[in-house]
């Protein structure tokens, strides 16, 4: 167990270096100049001065200095990603990438966590009901809702909610800052995940409910509720758990559409914005933060797996 954690953590920097290099090459290869804008162009000498300020005229110096910082007088180096300095934003000149990410990441994490929470509660409940009342009208209903949830894109569900609750009823506002503002985006973002979890739970439950240990439990006279939740669900939950890692990462990082529809100041937009603006530092910073997040989440899921299922040994 501890060996696994150690190994995974040891891999982390190596993986990140590969990601850093690939991102850098791609970002540099994207045509266009980050300082170029529509409208009035500054004189040539000023444009050159701007480029030189950020090492934009020298890819090798940029690559090395962004990673390990610049040499300092009297030895040593200063700045660089390794010390947690993600550099300045080229487009948003008053902010550093660290400030931007630090501001947006908690928002994405909150939204993603809320969505996964809803998805879990709704999905598992629906899945259990479906499995227990298999073939009945409730099962059919949850299956259909799940199908809709999986197939309907979030920008459609989001816009529908917006039209009903914001424009017609005026109950909920868009933006970010209060609990009520979290409701619509979290539900929207949770739907596909909830649907997927419902199907996974239902399948797992159906499988488990007909297995020997469940029959034994029933034969011992254990109550039906206890059979379902204490015995069966515990096993049926395993596929959900393995889905949860990538799902949590996806919910926390991939909410671009939902962020746009509900005007949420999360990370998703920087993923797209930074590339469009060719804001080199921001691209690198966002990608590095995201990749770290993804790797850590997968590690956490593997750990959780061994906690829940004693049959799995991770060594």
């Amino acid at each position, binding site marked *: 167990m501890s060996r696994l954690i150690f190994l995974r953590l040891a891999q982390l920097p190596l993986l990140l270096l590969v990601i850093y290099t690939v991102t850098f090459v791609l970002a540099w290869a994207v045509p*266009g100049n980050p300082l170029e804008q529509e409208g*009035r162009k500054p004189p040539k000498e000023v444009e050159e001065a701007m480029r030189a300020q950020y090492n934009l005229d020298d890819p090798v110096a940029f690559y090395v200095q962004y990673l390990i910082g610049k040499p300092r007088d009297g030895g040593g180096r200063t700045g660089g990603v390794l010390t947690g300095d993600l550099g300045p934003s080229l487009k*948003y000149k*008053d902010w550093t990438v660290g400030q931007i990410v630090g501001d*947006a990441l908690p928002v994405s994490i*909150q939204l993603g*966590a809320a969505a996964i929470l809803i998805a879990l509660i709704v999905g598992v409940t629906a899945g259990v009901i479906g499995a227990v009342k298999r073939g009945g009208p409730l099962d059919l209903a949850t299956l259909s809702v799940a199908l809709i949830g999986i197939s309907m894109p979030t920008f459609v569900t989001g816009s529908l909610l917006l039209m009903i609750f914001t424009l017609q009823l005026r109950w909920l506002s868009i933006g970010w800052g209060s*609990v009520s503002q979290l409701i619509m985006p979290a539900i929207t973002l949770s739907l596909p995940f909830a649907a997927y979890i419902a199907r996974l739970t239902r399948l797992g439950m159906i499988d488990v409910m007909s297995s020997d240990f469940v029959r034994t439990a029933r034969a011992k006279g254990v109550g039906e509720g206890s059979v379902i939740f204490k015995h069966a669900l515990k096993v049926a939950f395993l596929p959900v758990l393995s889905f949860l890692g990538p799902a949590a990462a996806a919910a926390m990082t991939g909410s671009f559409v939902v962020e*746009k529809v509900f005007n949420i100041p999360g990370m998703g937009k920087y993923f797209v914005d930074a590339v469009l603006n060719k804001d080199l530092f921001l691209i690198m910073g966002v990608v590095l933060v995201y990749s770290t997040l993804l790797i850590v989440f997968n590690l956490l899921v593997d750990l959780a797996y061994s906690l829940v299922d004693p049959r799995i040994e991770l060594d």
Partner: protein
Amino acid sequence: MRLILPLLLLVALLVVSIAIDPPRPRADLVTGYSSIETLDPQIGRAHEDIEIAYALFEGLVTFDPKDFSMVPGVAASWDISDDGTVYTFHLRPDAKWSNGDPVTAGDFRFAWSLGLTPDTAPPYIDFLYYIKGAKDYYNWAQQSLTEINEMDAPPAEKLAAARQRVERFGEKFDELVGVKVIDDRTLRVELQEYLPYFTEIASTWALFPLHPPTIRAHMHVDPFSYRLRRDPQWTKPENIVCDGPYVLDTWEFKRRIRLRRNEHFHSAKDVNLATIEFVHFQDYVTMFTAYESGELDLVVGATPVPFAPDLIAAQREGKRNDVHELDAYGTYYYVFNTRPTVEGKPNIMADVRLRKALAMTIDKKRLVEDVTRLHQTTTTCLTPIGAINGYDPPQGLPYDPDQGRKLLADAGFPNGQGFPAISLLYNTGGGHEFVAQAIAHMWKEQLNIDVKLEAQEWKVFLRNRNVGQFSVARSGWFGDYSDPTTFVDLMRTGNGNNDAGFSDAKYDAMLDAAAAERDQTKRFKMLSEAEHYGLTVGVPLVPLYYYNIIHLYDPNELTGVTQHQRNVQMYWRIKRIRPE
């Protein structure tokens, strides 16, 4: 129990993170914005940055948003020498920084001495270059920086030299630049040459003063590049000191900017809205939704929403009185590549007859009525009509398909025969593709020629258009100041924004002659003639229509939102109509 653990963790995470952001009282005016790049006025560039800069700072001169006339700002009055090249500004005694310090003539000198360096590299440095000797000072600052970088010495020594260089900024500025601080309240500015619109230049963000103690506290010499760096933290609420009608209360990146009245502002009693909140929206449709649900009081420039044509229709039918439409100080046009060769091959568009033929077969009325459906004002000239007092823009080429076909035949392609397919370059999104398709269709219909439509991503498009990798390209220009030169310079040889690569000695001579003319009426007439020559004889571009702008607000609640073509909001002039 183990199963519930992750759930509990998630709940805890949520509760803790939500507790951080308590809601606050609604500001007197809530509006939206889409992108603020910086609040440092000296390096500001984009429209929204500039509007906030005008709320936070004030220059020597300022403008009345109703008619864009120049009115006293920090300077209560100014004298202009007889030859029009020396301005003496008399600062008002009650001009104060937001911390109570007086705004002095020296604060302008300080700001300009920093702006005119490669260390700061302001995008609107051209506005400072109008001052006598400004360019020489910039060159000195650049050269001294290069010398330090090339010095063969240990870094510590170079750093010491770099610090000395920065200390000499003031002394060198006084030596080279025609700016003299006569006393705290008097500033004399000598211009490089006669410039009839210098008072307007003096009102712009590029010439705003900076509060020296604040900036000094955030300046350091960078030990690697030896440049003077200004820590952008100075624009954060806890640091910024400004001299305009508002001070910065809150700035949460890409969330909200909140301003509150600057009680030290000389006209603070005339500032009606005590607080203004700018809420960030990534998307104009979302901004519109927020406006419709009552979260926003005002949306400036709602034109990007896809249903803008419906808003205009509703306004024209009298169904919505909160839709306000106006012409912008900007022209949408198509630019022709006039360079003799493109990628080493002869450029067919270098033949002016072809450019004319293409220009005369675009039915602009159909474009604005059936394609954009925004009913913009169509135009044949580049400078917006009615935007500059006293300037009468000329008539450009008319819509005349018969003449177009004749010109095409004269150029050797009767009925389009043998005409090679030309490329029409535009950027993706923004509805440009519909205009491009419609125009390509018109050319096919009228001239029987084929056009290759080339959609490119924004940054790629900008570069290709600038270096001349196109035959015809979509373009647009918003004027920077109230003078026709801000438009007609686009066709001048070597202008950085002359994407056509157009070069005509006669046209340049006409502009030079106008620049030397001191009589404003005559000068405008000469410029109008030059514009006419450029658009009908040179034809590097064909103007299509003026951009239009839609503001959304209830006229029974707000007054003072500018309806002028220049479309720069002065937020402190906006008033909320309160029931008695």
